[in-house]
């Protein structure tokens, strides 16, 4: 294999492993914050226990998130040294600020996790949630800013192979940053909520501890509510993204929709198979005029087709599938959470019917797969560029030998870490009843409200 491909696979495997833990790292603090709030406010020891148990599992996922984050941070220089040499000149500021946000979060997370018993006033402990949520969300904001720069570079002029008039603030607040930050943060909150909803649903389907049912029903309700709100925001963010791509990165939009001719009244293509030679799309579901509408809020919006973009700048056509998967999985979670509340509020059916529980259970894994698909779409969609319009990935890859070995070593590492992490989490919660934890933390006699 050539070095560019190897480098891309190494980076892709690190990022797709890291993103699972990073997403949880950004999203779970919000859920813990809500649970602890409900617990303190309603004096409900079940919500308090929930916050503590989630935090306990979170310690494990955050550890893997931290180490894989460290890996990708350094791998950027190890695999793409020329890119980082250039990046240091242009986007060091958000990278640097990301570590500050991360530092801030790490300090307060350390305090939060080990001070459950040290405050007389529980609200003081709750306040620790605020710097954690700020820190974790700001990390996502800054790192997304770096990635946005790679998609829509700004804040410098190019003069004969050198960068002049570098403006770090303009580079940080490049054109795509707002849309992407919104999308990343909303989907992280959404996915974390649905992952926890999946756990609650799973525990309602299959659980050794019958007395835990009430606890898991409460957990399901709160996580479904957070998931519903966040998936609504995600839909709004997705709509912004389509309009943004239409204006700023038409080649990505065209490739993800297999849109070849520039035309108004463009159709939205769902699923299907592409014959790249003839540009024919078979077996697809076409929604007439929808792509034009998504791009510009009117059916006569002219959408740029791939035939008007130089061929060597075409992203790979495979991103269409990632787009379909992202939308489909994301919509699934949204739809299921809507059904949950409709059944619960407006019908006389049981919202904990086994068939429904299986549907809830799928929301978490599918949302996570939507995240992965979305990032594959975003990253492959800017190929062949590493900095769109300025540097190709082929120019950025290291000339050092040994990329093949490095790839194998890291793949083995991720498999081992992934399995051990899952093993520890399953062990942690499989044999311990939530009600027993509650009694341990808050005393036998305490009743849930």
């Amino acid at each position: 294999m050539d070095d560019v491909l190897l480098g891309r696979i190494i980076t892709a495997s690190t990022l797709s492993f890291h993103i699972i833990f990073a997403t949880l790292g950004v999203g779970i603090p919000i859920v813990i914050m809500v649970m602890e709030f409900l617990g303190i406010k309603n004096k409900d020891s079940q919500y308090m226990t929930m916050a503590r148990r989630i935090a306990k599992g979170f310690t494990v996922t955050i550890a893997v998130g931290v180490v894989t984050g460290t890996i990708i941070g350094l791998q950027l220089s190890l695999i793409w040294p020329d890119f980082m040499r250039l990046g240091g000149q242009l986007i060091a500021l958000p990278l640097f600020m990301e570590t500050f946000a991360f530092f801030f979060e790490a300090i307060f997370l350390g305090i939060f996790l080990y001070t459950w018993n040290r405050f007389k006033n529980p609200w003081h402990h709750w306040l620790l949630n605020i710097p954690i949520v700020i820190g974790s969300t700001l990390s996502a904001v800054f790192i997304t800013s770096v990635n946005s720069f790679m998609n829509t570079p700004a804040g410098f002029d190019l003069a004969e192979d050198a960068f002049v008039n570098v403006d770090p603030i303009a580079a940080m607040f490049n054109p795509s940053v707002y849309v992407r930050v919104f999308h990343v943060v909303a989907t992280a909150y959404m996915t974390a909520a649905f992952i926890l909803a999946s756990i609650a649903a799973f525990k309602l389907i299959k659980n050794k501890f019958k007395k835990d049912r009430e606890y898991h029903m409460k957990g399901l309700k709160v996580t479904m509510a957070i998931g519903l709100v966040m998936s609504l925001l995600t839909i709004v963010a997705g709509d912004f993204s389509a309009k943004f791509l239409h204006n700023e990165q038409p080649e990505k939009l065209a490739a993800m929709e297999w849109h070849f001719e520039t035309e108004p009244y463009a159709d939205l293509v769902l699923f299907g198979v592409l014959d790249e030679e003839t540009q024919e799309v078979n077996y697809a579901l076409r929604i007439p005029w929808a792509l034009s509408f998504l791009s510009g809020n009117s059916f006569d919006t002219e959408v740029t087709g791939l035939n008007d973009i130089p061929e060597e700048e075409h992203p790979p056509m495979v991103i269409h599938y990632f787009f379909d998967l992202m939308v489909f999985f994301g919509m699934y979670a949204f739809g299921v959470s809507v059904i949950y509340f409709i059944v619960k509020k407006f019908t006389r059916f049981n919202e904990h019917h086994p068939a429904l529980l299986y549907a809830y259970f799928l929301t978490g894994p599918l949302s996570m797969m939507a995240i992965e698909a979305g990032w594959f779409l975003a990253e492959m969609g800017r190929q062949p560029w590493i900095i769109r319009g300025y540097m190709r990935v082929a120019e950025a890859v290291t000339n050092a030998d040994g990329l093949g070995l490095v790839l194998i070593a890291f793949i083995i590492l991720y498999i081992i870490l992934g399995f051990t992490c899952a093993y520890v989490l399953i062990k942690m919660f499989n044999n311990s009843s939530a009600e027993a934890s509650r009694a341990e933390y808050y005393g036998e006699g305490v009743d849930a409200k």
Partner: protein
Amino acid sequence: MMDLNYELIGITVLWTFLYGYIIVAAIDFGAGFFNYYAIETGQHRTVSHIIQRYLSPVWEVTNVFFVFFFVGIVGFYPDTAYYLGTTLLIPGSIALILLAIRGSYYAFNASATKPRKSWAFLYGVTGLLIPASLSVVLVISEGGYIYEDGDGVQLNIQELFFSSYAWTIVFLAIILVLYISSGFLTYYASKAKNKDAMETFRNWFLIWSLPMLVISQFTFLSLREHNYEHFQSAQDYWYLFGLSLLAMIIAVFLIWKKRNFGLAFIMIMLQFGFAFYGYGISKLPYILYPYIDINTSVVNEAMAFSLTVAFVLGLLLLIPSLILLLRLFIFNAEYVEGKNEEGY
């Protein structure tokens, strides 16, 4: 824009963060190793809970010091990404894998219902291998192991592997970890009023102070062999190295006499501080001899200015937070002693 000397600001900031990282990481790595060693030798009942009590809330913060350093160095001196990034592909990847194993298995073991000896082994032993592998970067920065050809820069791995200077630095790093962390744990156990643990840590510290003294002398000798220019400029700062030795004598004396462990640990920090800054100052202006000179490779002025501003604002946020963390977990007698706490 103000006319500031960014190349010096950058290196001072980074060197200070590296100093901070080495101190906290040495405590962290050494504690993990001693924890495993205690399990093997049956001393864990005395010492392990003291070690866990310290490690739990801070291990993540340790890691951030490191991230901060390498993000900062690429930001202030982007050429480092190119030269060190290219040459360190293999050693860097090894260090990353070790760091990943240590960080995750520490957390796995601390969270598991039943801690495992094999997991304690993983984070204990990687704790000594990480400093060894990271110290390779300092070795390379002395120059002589990198050559430039038509394809770009390359690392001469053979040259590195058979170099006495490289091995001296590797042993220095390992001994330093054991020395600093046993010194800190002695202090921490004495705060916890745990006499048995304190005695054990104190013994370990006294055992490691002799190799510490020997290896520091070796470092000078092999630097003289390897980079005579740097060795000569280090002699201009002989007083820094002298102060370092003095601080070491005071530290060992205090701990030997079982007096004032807090002051003794400050002396250990000063001992390392004088030597580290002495080494750093005498190395200037090179980050990587002779390719990266701080005067010619500093980032463009606009970025340097914004990084400096971000750094100052960031510190305003971090310092109070770090003080809070220290007050809650290190300078809090009740926590350290493990007394029952009131709560909700």
